[in-house]
């Protein structure tokens, strides 16, 4: 096992990473399941019913972790894309492409659960508050990345173009968030805000953290799985791929 540390860079090639990823995936699924069950337990059976929001606030155990993941995954995706661009490594770019759809899915879930939380609480299916609006824009950034990569046929060009877009995006996300927050406070005052969640009981915080961990483990498992599919698709001309499938 100590070989893995010494020959770290060996795993920079798709050929060696493919079997390693295959071995890691079940472990991450297991962790996701464990954290998921624990988080749901806390969310449904430990956290008490809220005085003002009733039981609808339990959506927070999905909404907030999903938001966190969508933002975290974008940064991770941009990092991998940047590494792929600067070091010219194919595998890093494949990781970035593998992460994008999952990140977009979490952004969508954040918006969906946000809408379902908003309707009983504030009467409308959509609230133009700073966080939800920024989340919507983040979804657009994900979709743009995926669309650009899908539109470019030549894989290395798609990798590099996507990397530039992701890096430009990652720089823009704080700017966008700040400007949307500014826009929101000027127009709406303090009336409607998703961050007016019930004051955080410790149990609720733990629930959200554990659900976030569950989503994180899930994301890693799915991203590794997708990366494997991408490797097979893109390296199909090589020998190792032909014999990697039984």
């Amino acid at each position, binding site marked *: 096992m100590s070989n893995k540390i010494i020959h770290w860079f060996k795993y920079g090639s798709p050929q060696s990473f493919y079997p390693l990823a295959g071995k890691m995936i079940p472990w991450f699924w297991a962790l996701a399941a464990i954290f998921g069950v624990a988080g749901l337990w806390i969310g*449904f*059976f430990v956290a*008490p*019913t809220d005085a003002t929001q*009733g*039981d*609808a606030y*339990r*959506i927070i155990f*999905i*909404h907030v972790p*999903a938001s966190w993941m969508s933002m975290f995954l974008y940064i991770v995706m941009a990092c991998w894309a940047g590494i792929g661009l600067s070091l010219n490594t194919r595998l890093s770019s494949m990781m970035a492409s593998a992460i994008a*759809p*999952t990140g977009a*899915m979490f952004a*969508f*879930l954040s918006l*969906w*659960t946000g809408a*379902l*939380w908003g*309707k*009983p609480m504030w009467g409308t299916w959509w609230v133009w508050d700073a966080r939800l609006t920024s989340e919507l824009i983040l979804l657009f950034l994900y979709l743009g990345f995926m669309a650009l990569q899908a539109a470019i046929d030549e894989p290395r060009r798609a990798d590099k173009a996507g990397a530039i877009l992701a890096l430009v995006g990652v720089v823009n996300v704080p700017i966008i968030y700040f400007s949307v927050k500014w826009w929101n406070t000027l127009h709406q005052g303090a009336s409607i805000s998703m961050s007016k969640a019930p004051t955080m009981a410790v149990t609720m915080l733990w629930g959200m953290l554990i659900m976030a961990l569950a989503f994180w483990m*899930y994301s890693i*498992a*799915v991203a590794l*799985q*997708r990366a*494997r*599919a991408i490797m*097979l*698709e893109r390296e*199909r001309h090589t020998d190792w*791929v*032909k*014999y990697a*499938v039984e």
Partner: protein
Amino acid sequence: MQWNSIGEFFAMGGYGLYVWGSFGVTALALLIEPLLLRKRQSDVATSLRRERNADERQK
């Protein structure tokens, strides 16, 4: 544990539609994504196998 019955659990104090709409769609998404991936993986595998068999037949 504050649920006195399964019925209460599903009703979620009247907010059942919203709570289960959220958790349900999330569960669905977390199920569909890996399934779609598995299909993608098996599609690639099938076509690779076909290629390999074609190569071997040629030899």
